[in-house]
C-alpha cells in the first residue's frame, strides 16, 4: 500500500524521463535537507571564520598584541583608565590579579590572563592553532590510513597480515601515554630536529599534528580496510582486470572511488576527536608549544586563576565544546546522507 500511496503523491508526471543522479548528488541533496546538520556546519564555519579573523580583531578592535606579556598595561573600563594587573583582588587580596571580563569588545572583553594578555584575542588565535592542528592531523591521519588500507586490502595475504598486525600494536598503546612519550622525548630537544633534509622547530604546530595523526591511524584503518576488502572482489574490478588494467589503475580508478565515502564519513568525527586530543595534550603541556597558543594551553594557563578569574578557563572550553559538538552533529548528518542504511557504529 505504501508504494501505491507514494506513487499517488508524486502526481502525474508521465512525460518527464527519470533523471539519473550520481550517488554524490543524492548524498548532497540528503545533506542539504538535513537542517540540523546544516546548522552545525554553519556554526563550525562561523568558528573557523572568527579564528581566521584573529589578527583583524586584535589589531582593529581590541588594539592589542596578545602575545608579549603586558604586566604594566592599561585599559579603559566605563571610561576610566585602569591597570590590567590589579593589586590585591580575589578572595585573598594578595599579589596581583589580572583584570576580569569587561564584556566590552574593544577593551579586554574576557579579561586578562596571568601575564596581562588579552584573553579574548588569545582565544581567537588559540582557535587558529586548535583548528589547524585538529583538521591537519585528521586529514593526515585519514590519508595515511587510506593508503595503508588500500595496500593491505588490495594485495592481501602476507602484506595484509603484516600491516594489520602493525596497526593492532599501535592500537594497543594507551592513546595519551603514547602521545606523551613521543612528545616528551622530542621536547627534551629545544632546538628542533633534523629529519633528513627537513628541519622542524620544537614549537612547530606540525609536531602535535603528526603525533596525533599517528596515534589515530588504526581507528581509521580498520573500517577503510573493511570497505576495501568488500570491494576488491566485486565484478567491476574483475572486469577491469580482464581489460588489462594494472595495479595502480585498479587501486586508484576502481577501488579508491568506492572507499572514499567511508573516509568522508569518518573525517568530521576524526576532526572532532583530534581537536579534543590536541586540547588535552596542550592542557598537559605536551601539545601546542609557546609562543603558539591553543584552546588547551589557555585553559591550562587559566587553571591558576580558576577561582579568581574563571572566564580564562571557561571560555576556551566552551569554544572546544561548540566546535566538537558541531562536528559530531555534522558527522552524523554526513553519515546519514552517504549511507542511509548505516547503523550507529562509528563513535568518536
Amino acid at each position, binding site marked *: 500500500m505504501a508504494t501505491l500511496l507514494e506513487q499517488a503523491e508524486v502526481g502525474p508526471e508521465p512525460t518527464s524521463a527519470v533523471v539519473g543522479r550520481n550517488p554524490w548528488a543524492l548524498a548532497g541533496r540528503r545533506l542539504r535537507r538535513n537542517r540540523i546538520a546544516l546548522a552545525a556546519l554553519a556554526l563550525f564555519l562561523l568558528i573557523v571564520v572568527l579564528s581566521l579573523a584573529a589578527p583583524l580583531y586584535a589589531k582593529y578592535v581590541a588594539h592589542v598584541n596578545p602575545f608579549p606579556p603586558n604586566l604594566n598595561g592599561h585599559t579603559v573600563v566605563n571610561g576610566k583608565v585602569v591597570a590590567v594587573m590589579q593589586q590585591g583582588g580575589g578572595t585573598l587580596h594578595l599579589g596581583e590579579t589580572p583584570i576580569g571580563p569587561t564584556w566590552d569588545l574593544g577593551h579586554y572583553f574576557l579579561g586578562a590572563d596571568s601575564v596581562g594578555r588579552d584573553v579574548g584575542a588569545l582565544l581567537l588565535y588559540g582557535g587558529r592553532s586548535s583548528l589547524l592542528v585538529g583538521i591537519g592531523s585528521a586529514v593526515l591521519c585519514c590519508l595515511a590510513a587510506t593508503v595503508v588500507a588500500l595496500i593491505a586490502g588490495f594485495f592481501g595475504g602476507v602484506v595484509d597480515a603484516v600491516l594489520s598486525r602493525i596497526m593492532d600494536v599501535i592500537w594497543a598503546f594507551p592513546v595519551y601515554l603514547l602521545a606523551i612519550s613521543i612528545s616528551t622525548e622530542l621536547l627534551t630537544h629545544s632546538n628542533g630536529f633534523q629529519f633528513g633534509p627537513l628541519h622542524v622547530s620544537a614549537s612547530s604546530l606540525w609536531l602535535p599534528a603528526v603525533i596525533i595523526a599517528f596515534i589515530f591511524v588504526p581507528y581509521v584503518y580498520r573500517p577503510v580496510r573493511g570497505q576495501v576488502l568488500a570491494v576488491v572482489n566485486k565484478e567491476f574490478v574483475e572486469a577491469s582486470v580482464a581489460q588489462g588494467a594494472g595495479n595502480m589503475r585498479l587501486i586508484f580508478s576502481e577501488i579508491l572511488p568506492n572507499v572514499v565515502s567511508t573516509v568522508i564519513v569518518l573525517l568530521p568525527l576524526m576532526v572532532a576527536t583530534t581537536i579534543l586530543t590536541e586540547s588535552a595534550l596542550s592542557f598537559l603541556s605536551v601539545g601546542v608549544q609557546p609562543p603558539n597558543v591553543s584552546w588547551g594551553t589557555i585553559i591550562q594557563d587559566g587553571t591558576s586563576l*580558576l577561582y579568581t578569574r574563571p572566564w580564562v578557563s571557561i571560555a*576556551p572550553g566552551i569554544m572546544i565544546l561548540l566546535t566538537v559538538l558541531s562536528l559530531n552533529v555534522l558527522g552524523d548528518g554526513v553519515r546519514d546522507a552517504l549511507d542511509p542504511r548505516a547503523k*550507529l557504529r562509528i563513535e568518536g
Partner: protein
Amino acid sequence: MLTFIIRRLLWTVLVLFVITVVVFIIFFKTPGVDPARAIAGRNPSAQVLQEIREQFGLNKPLPVQYLLMMKSIFISRDLVSYSNQGVKVVPEIAAATPATLSLVFGAALIWVVMAIAVGVAAALLRGTVFDPLLMVLALIGVSAPVFWVGEVANLITQGTWHDTFLFSWVPPLGYTPLTQNPGLWFRGLVIPWITLSILYIGLYGRVLRANILETQNEDFVRTARAKGISERQVLLRHTLRTSMITFVSLFGLDFGALVAGGALLIEVVFGIHGVGYLTYQALANLDLPTIMATVVYGAFFIVLVNAIVDIGYAWLDPRIRPT
C-alpha cells in the same frame, strides 16, 4: 575453544614483544636524541650520564641494550628516576595503582547504570521529544573536553558554591585511601567519578539506543511478542540482552584503557595521586624512566584485558571462534 585460546595467547605474547620494541625505539633510538641525556632529566652531571650509559649499555650492541631495558623494567625492577632523587619507579607505580582503580571502578559503575538507563529510555521514548533530547545531551557529553568539565566542577564545588549546603560536603582536592578513611575516600571521589563517567554515559547511551532499535526488528523479538510475553520481559530478556554485546566489548576496552593511564586528565584536575598523576608529574620533570615504565605497564594491561575480553566473547558467542 582451546585452540582459539592458545592462538589468542600466542598472539598476545607477540604483541607484548612488539610493544616493548616500539617503546625501546621511542626512548632509545629516536633520531637526533641522545637517550642518556633524555633519561637523565634536566641538567645532568657527567657522572650521572656515565652511570646511565653503563646501566643501559648504550655503547653495546642493540639487542643487549634492549635486554638491559627489559631487565630493569621487569626483572630487577631497579629503573631509577633521575629527576626524582633516585626513587625506584616500579614500586612507585604499584603504590599509585589503588587510587586509579578506585577512580575507574566507581566511574564505571555510574556510567554502566546511567548509560543503560539513557539508552533504554531513548529507545522506548522514540517518537517523543525525549529521545532527541536525550541524544543531544549525550552528544554534548561526548563533545565536552573532560579536563575542562573537571575544572568547571571544581569551580562550582570548591569555589562558588562550596559554602552553600549543596557542596559543603566536598572535601578539598586530593585522594584519601579507602583503608584510611572510607567516608572521606567516598566523598572525595564522588565528583571525579561523575566527571569521568559523563563522556562514557553519552557514548554508551548512543550505542545502546542504536542497538536496541536494530534488535527490535529481529525475528526472535517478534516471536517473543507473539508468544504473549509481557513487553517488559521482551525488553529485558530478549532485546536488551542481545543489544548489550557491543556494550560489553566496548566496556572491556575502555575500562582497560582508563586503568592503564587514560584517567590521567581526571587525576590531574582533581589531584588524585594515581598512575596517571605520576605520569603527569614525570612529564613536568621530563622524567623519562617513569614515563617509560607507565607506558609499558599500561600497554601490557590493555593487551591483557583485550585478550580476556576476546576469550570471554568467544566463550559467549561461538560464531566468532574460528577467526
